[in-house]
């Protein structure tokens, strides 16, 4: 068998090291490493000895590691050019584990000149960077990010998974080494301790001390280096970071222990430090896993779209996780299943509930060739759908992106938590210095112990992490209820009652004409007259016709013989149904058609209809009025209860409408609202004025309206709530979109806001209490560094778990 050549040194590859199928073989691990290093720095030309090569450009200025970020193809494909010449890109980030990491990364502009802005999306572990293209290159930015201790990579699904896997592996190795160090050091410490009682040979004692020092230093420099790196980054960007107290504790203990080792006498802290490093790494790993699970829980996309789907493979349908679906896949969606992606129906007819996207409660009938959207519910029979878009490319995905990448600044309460966290870290460092000083005076032997214990036990993570986590959980749970919220500010603002302005048409009312009353007049009315009318009007798109066609009194679905349907210019229609002449229309049409005045009782019925602000529609059979229908835009069924609910919760309610003031006044009285707060005949700018005026002096002003027509008023309110119309359009104007028709969602939203704020305050309180008690105990010397090392991860896990248990009560 011919021997393979090593790709690096060209010597023979031992048969036992051959990798079948690999395109490059190496004779030893060293050659593989050298080859990787050479290729990694773009120095391949050094292999081609003896050949004349062009002088390549100097590669030595940048680390080639991130050179791919500067390639034209990457820039074109992954970055966005803005009008002012700046570019922005979204990069995946590995290594985010706490809120302080977010602070650090968002101060990237201080570390890398030329960066304009950096924003972290913690849930997706991404960083959006905006920079001036002429001032700095993307690879330099990537270097800067890496220098802070976080690894950036292009946002490709498999990249992210791969980076996560390698980071996980490294973490596991670090924990293993920390455990080995801790275990060994505890053994050594036990021996030294026992040796204090029986005589231990001085040489052996020194040997053991040096061994303890060596193992301790290994633990500090290998698994423990993450803490130092975090602290160093924090110092460089002048941001107080969680790792600062820990790094300080490790540094102080390590230095003191080393000095004592060299001196030959004195306390060695290495056993404590090793155990501390181990426990902290384990606690951090558990926290990270919790966060990952929380992120999966918070993945709103996943809550609205299904976890699995049935994809066609060959002739059968195989159940696959929804995440592996690709455009072009063909899936089968059974009845009562949510459609997993945007697509086109290939076969099957059914009805879908599209309320989450459009607010339309009425199911949409669809058949082959029709387009369906992700997140909508298949109500009828199963359909076969070819997917055109999945995940973030779907309509629903884009809407959710709007929610996530809200342009608002960080919610006030999170900013508050951040500030408190920063001051907290500084306070802890100061407290530990004070403790050190005090104990050095009183009883020097344990001073370092107590100072280190204090540094360890204080946990600012809970403070800074619990609040944004609670808000994220709240938003995700709200989305489950089809209340789409953009930005955590909303819930905080809604916790204080103020003024709620309601739009009338479409918000308080159905927004559609409907038959609100039907009176048969005279003796001539056939039994099925309403259905005849419905059948005749079914073809017409006029709102009144639609109302008559949808008449709830006319839904038997029988077929009638209809001929000669003619639409009149005066706003009516005539037809022949089952041999009878039917005419349907308003008063002028009927007068013209009948050529005779209306009878008294007909006029009376019409007058009563007009008094309730509805429109009378006359139905004539064979030349005589047989029935009068009242057509109006009715109030929503839950409107009155909702308004009452709002007022019970302390909100003042008013109506802003462009409709005639009399109609608005009538609606107000029906709803039980004070007429002074209900204004009709308004232009859009008038609505804006009202909304803005009630937002003065810090009061909360809420506007509930149509996402398209009332956009300006919605934007002017403290919280704008958009209902019906398209979700995507609405969310551009307002921070909240109700995917359910009706006002019940508004009441629920207010309750959610209250529940969330209460949870945030509670979590804050718990973590503050823990810290206060723990710090006092540590300063007093009642808990040692080891106990502190165990307490701290427990506390942060507790608070995070508390945040995840947020639940909303189902409102009636």
């Amino acid at each position, binding site marked *: 068998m011919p021997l393979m050549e090593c790709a690096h*040194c060209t010597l023979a590859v*031992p*048969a036992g090291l051959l990798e079948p199928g690999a395109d490059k073989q190496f004779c030893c691990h*060293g050659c593989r490493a050298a080859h990787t290093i050479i290729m990694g720095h773009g*120095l391949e030309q050094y292999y081609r000895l003896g050949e004349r090569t062009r002088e390549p450009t100097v590669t030595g200025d940048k680390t080639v*590691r991130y050179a791919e970020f500067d390639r034209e193809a990457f820039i074109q494909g992954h970055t966005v050019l803005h009008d002012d010449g700046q570019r922005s890109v979204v990069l995946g980030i590995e290594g985010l584990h706490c809120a302080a990491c977010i602070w650090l990364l968002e101060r990237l502009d201080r570390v890398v000149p030329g960066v304009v802005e950096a924003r972290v999306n913690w849930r997706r572990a991404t960083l959006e960077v905006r920079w001036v293209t002429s001032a700095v290159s993307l690879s330099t930015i990537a270097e800067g990010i890496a220098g802070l201790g976080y690894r950036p990579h292009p946002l490709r699904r498999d990249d992210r998974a791969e980076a996560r896997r390698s980071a996980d592996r490294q973490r596991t190795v670090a924990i293993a080494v920390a455990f080995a160090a801790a275990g060994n050091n505890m053994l050594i410490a036990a021996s030294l301790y026992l040796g204090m009682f029986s005589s231990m040979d001085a040489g052996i004692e020194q040997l053991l001390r040096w061994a303890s020092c060596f193992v301790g230093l290994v633990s500090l420099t290998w698994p423990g280096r993450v803490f130092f790196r975090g602290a160093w980054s924090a110092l460089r960007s002048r941001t107080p970071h969680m790792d600062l107290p820990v790094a300080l504790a490790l540094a102080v203990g390590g230095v003191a222990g080393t000095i004592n080792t060299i001196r030959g006498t004195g306390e060695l802290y290495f056993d404590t430090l090793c155990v501390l490093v181990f426990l902290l790494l384990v606690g951090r790993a558990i926290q990270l896993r919790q966060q990952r699970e929380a992120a999966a829980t918070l993945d709103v996309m996943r809550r609205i779209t299904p976890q699995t789907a049935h994809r066609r493979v060959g002739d059968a349908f195989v159940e696959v996780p929804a995440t592996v679906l690709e455009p072009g896949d063909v899936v089968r969606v059974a009845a009562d299943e949510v459609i997993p992606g945007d697509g086109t129906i290939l076969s099957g007819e059914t009805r879908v509930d599209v309320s989450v996207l459009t607010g339309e409660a009425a199911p949409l009938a669809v058949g082959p060739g029709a387009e369906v959207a992700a997140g909508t519910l298949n109500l009828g029979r199963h359909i076969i759908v070819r997917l055109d878009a999945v995940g973030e490319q779907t309509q629903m995905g884009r809407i959710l992106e709007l929610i996530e990448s809200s342009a608002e600044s960080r919610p006030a309460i999170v900013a508050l938590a951040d500030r408190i966290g920063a001051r907290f870290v500084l306070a802890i460092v100061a407290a530990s210095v004070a403790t050190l000083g005090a104990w050095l005076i009183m009883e020097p032997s344990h001073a370092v112990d107590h100072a280190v214990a204090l540094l360890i036990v204080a946990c600012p993570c809970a403070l800074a992490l619990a609040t944004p986590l609670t808000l994220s959980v709240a938003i995700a749970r709200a989305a489950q209820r089809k209340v789409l919220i953009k930005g955590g500010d909303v819930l905080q603002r809604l916790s204080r009652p103020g003024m709620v302005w309601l739009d009338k048409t479409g918000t308080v009312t159905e927004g559609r004409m409907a038959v609100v009353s039907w009176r048969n007049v005279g003796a001539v009315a056939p039994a099925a007259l309403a259905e005849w009318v419905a059948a005749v009007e079914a073809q017409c798109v006029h709102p009144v016709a639609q109302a008559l066609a949808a008449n709830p009194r006319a839904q038997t679905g029988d077929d009638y013989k209809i001929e000669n349907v003619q639409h009149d210019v005066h706003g009516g229609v005539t037809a022949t149904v089952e041999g009878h002449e039917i005419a349907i229309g308003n008063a002028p049409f009927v007068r013209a058609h009948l050529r005779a005045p209306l009878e008294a009782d007909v006029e009376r019925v019409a007058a009563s209809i007009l008094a309730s602000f509805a429109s009378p529609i006359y139905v004539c059979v064979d030349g005589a009025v047989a029935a009068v229908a009242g057509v109006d835009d009715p109030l929503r069924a839950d409107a009155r209860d909702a308004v009452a609910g709002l007022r019970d919760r302390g909100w003042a309610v008013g109506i802003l409408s462009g409709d005639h003031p009399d109609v608005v006044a009538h609606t107000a009285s029906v709803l039980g609202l004070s007429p002074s707060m209900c204004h009709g005949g308004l232009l859009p700018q008038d609505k804006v004025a009202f909304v803005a005026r009630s937002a003065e002096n810090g009061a909360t002003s809420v506007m509930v309206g149509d996402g398209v027509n009332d956009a300006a008023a919605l934007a002017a309110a403290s919280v704008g709530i958009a209902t019906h119309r398209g979700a995507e359009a609405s969310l551009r104007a307002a921070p909240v979109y109700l995917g359910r028709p009706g006002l019940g969602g508004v009441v629920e939203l207010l309750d959610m806001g209250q529940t969330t704020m209460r949870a945030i305050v509670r979590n804050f309180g718990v973590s503050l209490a823990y810290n206060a008690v723990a710090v006092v105990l540590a300063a007093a010397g009642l808990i040692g560094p080891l106990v502190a090392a165990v307490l701290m991860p427990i506390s942060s896990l507790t608070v995070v778990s508390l945040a995840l248990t947020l639940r909303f009560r189902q409102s009636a």
Partner: protein
Amino acid sequence: MIALLISVATAGLIGSIHCVGMCGPFVVLAMTPPGRVHLPQAPTADSATSGGSSISSRVLGYNGGRVLAYAMLGVLAGALGSVVDASGAALGLSGVAAAVAGGGMIVVGAISLLRVAGLRIGPRSQTLAPPRLLQRLVGGAVRQPKRRAVALGALSALMPCGWLWAFVITAAGTGSPLWGAAVMVALWAGSAPALTAFGGGAHAVSRRLTANRPWVAPVIVIAVGVYTLSARLPTAIDYRPAPTVSEDDLDETVQAPVEAPQDAPCH
């Protein structure tokens, strides 16, 4: 001890063909004049004096860096060996470091031989990636215009090269930092001529010489291992008998009563 040094130097000479193969590209890189990262044909007068440093300074720099790094490795290894020896001595054993080192070398050499024979042993090297730190360090070294040669020379001591580390084990086996450094310097001495003189062109030479002899290096490692194991090299620290504590001593130290002062308020 001198015998060991001579044999290590010889081994280094024989194995230096592979050293050239693996570190050749780095050597060429080190010899390149600063500021012009391109391929020199051969050290000519032009390239020798351009850029502010001469070819001889680069040669010296590379080899100097390498010998310093090797020596440091030897010191550390020897120190570790002396600790092992001391621990062994405390247990009543002598020459533990040499025994462990020798045994280790034999095992390493045997594994390599078996691999040459076709047996698969150990993890697939696909899964082992070079540490990022090394990548970064090399990158940093390449970017140094003036001290690139020295940096690269020093970094060659950190390469995950089994041949090198086999001799680090030998250095540990000497049980003394001084002799450990000597062993590594001997290795350096053996490999220096090939690396320096042949720099770039030895690629062709190496292929012709050793393409069919992958068993040479493992055999050398085993030989040195056997020698280390059997020769019971003298160690630098004295062998001390373990302290024995007699029954009487114990009684005397423990049972001496401590007089409590009669007027103490409490015990």
